[in-house]
């Protein structure tokens, strides 16, 4: 099967390409961009004039809710949501039920996902058995089963002693340890940023030092163990500053931020909007602005959806009782584009945060349109406006703080391995 995508503006952050060109696809891989390979005859031609073609998005965190939470979402629904959002590669956190701490579970998940022939799923294994923070998970076995890193998800971080062991062990094999920096004691019971809004609303608070103390601990342990660490979901200006300092010292770290934290702040909690109950909490507008700058400067390597489908029943409760998280696979692209526009970045720099830079963290072959790379492509209309209507989302999770709001930038077609999996 040979395909030509004709007339699109090809934006490939990995190679620095940005210009109108044809993309030639053969046997599921990029054969050439620009001039057709010798003797290329397309079986299928896709007219893409006026559209942008970029590598399929790479999302560092999408909860697919299997196994265990099928009433919130299923692999089928969330894989459809992924490609509807132009996401062709995603990492899923291990905080399922049971958690991804056994090779058998990981194999089952990857096999089921592969069978759907949609986005490519790379599981993150549990760092500790049951995510309890007490015993090491079988990292080598899990890696063999397909895990690309080891994570505690939203479960509390292990204590410093256990963290040191886990990072040492992972470093033995060169595995990446993913950690969401949040001190469990300082965060306990909290549901909102410690500031004026939490005080006004009478919500139990999570202070910024919950993030910075955990970061300092992680950075110190990473330095002595030599572990490669990925810091997941930064939330504060102080946290971003610590990461910048550590990177300047040469620490082997990468980090990401959830897309909501680039657009929302604790002010959006307004009248207890449970859709804004997120982990980590939305913080002060000054934190949000610092995070936006940190992504633009490269201190924060990547932006992810942190997609977390939640059923209505778990959101239609008082704020503090609501399950944290937002459905975001289908909003990742327009919200990233909006951040890029508002930050004065070009498309290459904007899209790098959800393609090449994210793929580098996962260590997988994705997020590039280089010759020979898998033909995973997102075609989108940069200027098309659309309104977020929960019922129109492919995800089973209709929970988003952006419902009813207008987005600019719409995915028109998503291609995985040369095959159209979403769109006309």
């Amino acid at each position, binding site marked *: 099967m040979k395909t030509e995508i004709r007339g699109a503006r090809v934006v490939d952050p990995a190679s620095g390409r940005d210009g109108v060109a044809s993309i030639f696809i053969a046997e599921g891989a990029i054969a050439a961009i620009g001039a057709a390979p010798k003797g290329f005859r397309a079986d299928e031609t896709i007219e893409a004039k006026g559209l942008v073609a970029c590598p399929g998005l790479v999302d560092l965190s999408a909860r697919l809710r299997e196994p265990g939470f099928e009433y919130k979402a299923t692999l089928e629904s969330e894989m459809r949501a992924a490609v509807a959002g132009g996401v062709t590669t995603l990492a899923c956190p291990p905080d399922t039920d049971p958690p991804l701490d056994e090779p058998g579970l990981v194999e089952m998940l990857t096999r089921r996902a592969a069978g759907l022939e949609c986005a490519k799923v790379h599981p993150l294994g549990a760092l500790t058995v049951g995510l309890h923070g007490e015993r090491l998970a079988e990292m080598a076995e899990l890696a063999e089963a397909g895990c690309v890193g080891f994570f505690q998800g939203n479960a509390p971080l292990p204590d410093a002693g256990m963290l040191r062991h886990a990072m040492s062990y992972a470093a033995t094999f060169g595995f990446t340890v993913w950690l969401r920096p949040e001190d469990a004691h300082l965060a306990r019971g909290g549901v909102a940023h*410690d*500031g*004026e809004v*939490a*005080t*006004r*609303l*009478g*919500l*139990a*608070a999570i*202070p910024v030092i919950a993030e910075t103390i955990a970061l300092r601990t992680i950075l110190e342990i990473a330095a002595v163990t030599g572990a490669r660490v990925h810091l997941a979901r930064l939330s504060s200006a102080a946290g971003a500053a610590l990461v910048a300092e550590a990177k300047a010292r040469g620490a082997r770290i990468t980090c990401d931020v959830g897309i909501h934290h680039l657009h929302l702040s604790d002010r959006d909690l*307004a*009248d*207890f909007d*449970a859709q804004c109950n997120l982990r980590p909490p939305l913080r002060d507008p000054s934190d949000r602005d610092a995070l936006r700058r940190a992504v633009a400067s490269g201190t924060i390597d990547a932006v992810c959806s942190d997609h977390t489908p939640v059923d209505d*029943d778990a959101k*239609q*409760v*008082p*704020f*503090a*009782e609501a399950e944290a998280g937002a459905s975001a696979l289908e909003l990742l692209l327009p919200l990233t584009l909006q951040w890029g526009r508002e930050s004065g970045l070009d498309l290459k720099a904007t899209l790098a945060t959800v393609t090449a830079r994210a793929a580098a963290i996962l260590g997988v072959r994705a997020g590039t349109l280089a010759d020979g790379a898998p033909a995973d492509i997102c075609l989108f209309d940069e200027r098309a406006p659309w309104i977020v209507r929960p019922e129109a989302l492919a995800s089973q999770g209709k929970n988003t703080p952006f419902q009813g709001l207008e987005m600019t930038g719409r995915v028109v077609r998503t291609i995985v391995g040369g095959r159209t999996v979403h769109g006309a």
Partner: protein
Amino acid sequence: MNANLQVGADGKLRHLLSTEGLSAEMIRRILDTADQFVGVSERDVKKVPLLRGKSVFNVFFEGSTRTRTTFEIAAKRLSADVINLNVAVSSTSKGETLLDTVYNLQAMDADMFVVRHAQSGAPHLIARHVKPGVAVINAGDGRHAHPTQGLLDMYTIRHYKKDFSALSVAIVGDVLHSRVARSQIHALKTLGVPDLRVIGPKTLIPSAVERLGVRVFHDMAEGIRGCDVVIMLRLQNERMSGALLPSAAEFFKCYGLTLEKLARAKPDAIVMHPGPMNRGVEIDSAVADGRQSVIMPQVTFGIAVRMAVMSMLGSA
């Protein structure tokens, strides 16, 4: 956004969820209405027919005898039918959700819900889901708000001090966990109190509270100096010793209101407390029962203020 949910486009009160977002005019209207009801309680027949035929459901997801009783009395004096539900020990322990409980009660033709809940924001959630015409009164939600308490405190202060525009008011104790303090702060600021202070140890003062327009004091003697109104907050038993305070005795020593400390306030300062009091913890008996205490009038005014709120909501 509070205001939109609470006050309709016609300017009428639809729900009472928080004192935040109520205009000074609305607060004055409530207090003026309460004035008329203070007389009712002094009559032989303590009833007016304003809510005749209406059903008021007291839905308490968190136990409270006193507050529930005052709402019950207020509703009965307005001739409403009152149904008390202690949900803390019924439906939710069977796994029913908050909204299911409310929908079920609404199907029994409730006109008004008086809701107390341990979670901040629960009454807002209910108010967003009830049928048009059904009113919700927040009788205390988590640490967030207790607006009728805040309003009865405003009534009490107005009764004794007449004018808010030159007052110094101190709120003392566990501000962190106090929905009463938050409701008082919003109402006092809206009514134009120029000098509003909160006093307590750093462990019991919430972050950024000065953004609500208060000055923070940690030294009781300094904080209380020259005040016209001293409001003592209740210290919950479970907070008296542990991570936030070492002991009730030490709290009393530092922040308990004694005659000696009260002497630093203005000679005609009034002392208030939302009840129930912990004598010897936040307040000394000599003060609680002393000439400056207006704690019992607060309780009496509380009925009138709740009647005022219910009558305004019932006529909307």
